[in-house]
């Protein structure tokens, strides 16, 4: 901590959001109040920059709509009328209801629902796991993002950090695949630009013409969900044209001969028919990728969101090994550097406390689960939501709304605001913002641990999530001291300080500097797999994946540590193309009624639904937009700024048409994040998103979504 002026102090913080960049953030505090925030210019990765979401984080802290006291519902569910009650009253009510439910139906009638609304090790993903596992509640399978890609990645190269994001500056050929870096991973951009200044070529593969795409040397537009054909055709060309790094393949991979035979079918002509990309472009891409070393592929979270999304990532995880990209810094695949952090997941989840056999429910199915369309015995009788706003992020919005409206469902929501979900709660509990809590942040986009120190005391009666679960443990009579550790102790016990990657990193250092790079070689020399050493069962890149034999699975990290009741659906051991489920070829009858494919990417100024109730960010985003290509708009008599209704059998929402080149013919783009309460027709893109999973890791398939658009 340093002092700027006698009246203003600077507190070292960290951005709490579910974004790969995890910025080192400075809280400016005057007289006990955060008066501004600023990026920390000292941080080597985030370099003093924040973003359109967080530049004015103080407006979130002091937003007039913040929930600062426990609230009890007084009107019908969803109406949003509440009365203030005390914490004691709230906890007593929860205790009474849960004891009654457990007595009548058993603890699995309680469902926790949370994700990364804040992603610190103390208050984030795992904060409620030990409590709910001890309670014996239904285990939540939280495959919100990257679960499918992670399953594919781990099957192929193991849980390796992969390439250091900072080493991208040494890349000579960079492919951003399904990744809008300038909006969702912006602090990576300077490293890409440094590489380009040295002559690197940048390729963006994305159906959308994002700002990132227009900034690239080449933008390759694929039809949504067909990327797998492109990736497999690249493998085909690399093998057919003898561009394989034979030594690397012989020493550090398994299954090459079978892969080579398998991909013979995936010609550039085959891929051209699927993707809409010219076969010549595909050939050239494969040649350049293979021969311009070191080459790097950066994949975005949305890459998994179609029927074949998992197998697409399997193919992409094979490519760097085939061309020997791993040999040098700046080469390889960048997925989740999260795997570099020695997080003590077992101690955070405490899966050892789960009563054997406890059922697991995937959170994308919450609508069907609450309405009884998934037969559950016992049914879900209580829902506890924290770090999430399912009504906007989960698919099947209409069904979920019906489920949440159930009078017999006891719903508790811990939140900053009366979100769409919180409006359906019986009880709303006030949560602190990052300025009011202590946390330690991993990153899934760089290799720095970042400490967040509380800048101010909590507003009103808001509590950090960790304190919430201490209170709930007391309420439920859990006396084990593990459940009553203070935030500092949880924080200290969340990582393995003795791990080699923590060498030289101390709490004192984090408190003084705010961040620390994991003890790994510098990005200028770090080539983690130059000599192989992949953490797979064979120790090699598994082009033919031995883990496929066990069928489809979700990493326990995404399911409170549980490894029971895995999906187990057969998985091809070799990367295999699967076209979109909702497409002309796979479902012609559906495509006749709903001829347009819809994608719902992240908005520039919202983090999912976070900030969509802030005037500043709303003024930048405007209301819900629906980007269309002129050829599709003309056919429907739609002009720019017309109100349009987007619909399919699952539901509909209304937005403002924007006609242009942002999207390609046959594809509409509806950025997500707006709240139902402030949307026309009180519905958002989630109303028409499918509940079907991608092929691996129970990832969602939101980019595999056929719709029709008409003037509203």
């Amino acid at each position, binding site marked *: 901590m340093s002092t700027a002026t006698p009246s203003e102090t600077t507190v070292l913080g960290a951005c709490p959001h579910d974004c790969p960049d995890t910025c080192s953030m400075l809280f400016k505090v005057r007289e006990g109040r955060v008066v501004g925030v600023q990026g920390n210019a000292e941080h080597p990765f985030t*370099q003093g920059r924040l973003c*359109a979401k967080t*530049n*004015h984080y103080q407006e979130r802290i002091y937003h007039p709509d913040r929930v600062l006291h426990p609230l009890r519902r007084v009107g019908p569910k969803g109406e949003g009328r509440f009365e203030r009650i005390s914490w004691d009253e709230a906890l007593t009510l929860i205790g009474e209801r849960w004891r009654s439910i457990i007595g009548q139906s058993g603890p699995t009638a309680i469902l926790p629902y949370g994700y990364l609304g804040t992603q610190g090790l103390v208050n984030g993903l795992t904060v409620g796991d030990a409590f709910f596992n001890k309670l014996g509640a239904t285990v939540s399978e939280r495959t919100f993002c990257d679960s499918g890609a992670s399953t594919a990645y781990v099957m192929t190269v193991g849980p390796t950090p992969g390439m250091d994001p900072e080493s991208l500056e040494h890349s000579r050929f960079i492919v951003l695949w399904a990744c809008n870096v300038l909006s969702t991973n*912006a602090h990576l951009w*300077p490293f890409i630009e440094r590489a380009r200044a040295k002559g690197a070529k940048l390729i963006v593969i994305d159906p959308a013409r994002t700002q990132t795409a227009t900034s690239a040397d080449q933008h390759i537009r694929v039809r949504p969900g067909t990327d797998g054909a492109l990736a497999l055709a690249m493998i085909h060309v690399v093998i057919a044209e003898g561009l394989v790094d034979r030594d690397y393949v012989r020493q550090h991979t398994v299954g090459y001969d079978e892969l080579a035979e398998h991909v013979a079918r995936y010609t550039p002509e085959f891929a051209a028919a699927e993707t809409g990309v010219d076969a010549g472009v595909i050939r050239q891409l494969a040649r350049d990728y293979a021969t311009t070393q070191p080459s790097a592929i950066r994949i975005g979270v949305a890459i998994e969101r179609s029927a074949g999304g998992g197998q697409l990532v399997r193919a992409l995880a094979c490519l760097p090994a085939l061309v020997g990209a791993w040999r040098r810094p700046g080469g390889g695949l960048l997925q989740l550097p999260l795997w570099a952090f020695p997080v003590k997941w077992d101690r955070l989840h405490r899966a050892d406390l789960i009563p054997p056999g406890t059922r697991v429910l995937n959170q994308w199915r919450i609508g069907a689960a609450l309405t009884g369309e998934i037969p559950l015995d016992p049914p879900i009788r209580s829902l506890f939501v924290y770090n999430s706003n399912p009504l906007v992020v989960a698919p099947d919005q209409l069904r979920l709304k019906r489920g949440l409206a159930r009078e017999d469902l006891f719903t508790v929501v811990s939140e900053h605001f009366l979100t769409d979900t919180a409006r359906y709660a019986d009880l709303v509990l006030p949560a602190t913002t990052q300025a009011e809590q202590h946390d330690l942040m991993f990153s899934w986009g760089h290799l720095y641990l970042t400490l967040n120190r509380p800048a101010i005391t909590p507003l009103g009666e808001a509590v950090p999530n960790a304190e919430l679960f201490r209170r709930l443990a007391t309420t439920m009579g859990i006396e084990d001291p593990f459940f009553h550790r203070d935030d500092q102790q949880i924080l200290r016990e969340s990582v393995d300080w003795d791990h080699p990657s923590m060498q030289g990193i101390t709490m004192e250092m984090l408190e003084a500097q705010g961040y620390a790079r994991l003890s790994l070689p510098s990005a200028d020399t770090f080539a983690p797999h130059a000599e192989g050493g992949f953490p797979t069962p064979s120790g090699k890149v598994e082009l033919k994946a031995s883990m496929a034999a066990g069928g489809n699975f979700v990493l326990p990290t995404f399911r409170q540590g549980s490894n029971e009741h895995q999906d187990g659906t057969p998985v091809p051991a070799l990367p295999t193309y699967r076209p979109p489920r909702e497409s002309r070829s796979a479902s012609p009858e559906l495509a006749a009624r709903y001829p347009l494919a819809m994608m719902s990417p992240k908005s*520039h100024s919202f983090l999912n639904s976070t900030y969509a109730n802030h005037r*500043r960010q709303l003024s*930048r985003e405007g209301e819900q937009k629906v980007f269309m290509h002129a050829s599709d708009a003309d056919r429907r008599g739609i002009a720019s700024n017309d109100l349009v209704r987007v619909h399919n059998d699952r539901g509909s929402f209304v937005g403002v048409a924007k006609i242009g080149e942002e999207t390609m013919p046959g594809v509409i783009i509806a950025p997500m994040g707006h709240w139902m309460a402030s949307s026309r027709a009180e519905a958002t893109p989630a109303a028409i998103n499918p509940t079907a999973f991608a092929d691996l890791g129970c990832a969602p398939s939101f980019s595999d979504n056929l719709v029709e658009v008409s003037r509203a």
Partner: protein
Amino acid sequence: MPHVVTDHCQDCRYTKCVDVCPVDCFHGSAERLYIDPEVCIDCAACVPICPVKAISDSFDLDGDGDALVELNRRMSLELPVVDAVAEPLPTAEAKRVALGY
């Protein structure tokens, strides 16, 4: 709404901002700079760097935010990118003092 360069830059042109901009969104005449709103990503790194607080989120400019965005947009179309720090104008210090910074 994106960030804009305001009239504070006129006769100053400190150009410290261009050094921290990750996307080269600054354009300039001989007298001042502008931000191309189509390129700026709102990282705000330039805001605390400017000695005369010439850069602002247009949301914070009462009333004339839209006009300033348009001015910045229009001038960015006409003027070249400025991506290297240059000496401030000779009038910069006097302007800074006059502005009270």
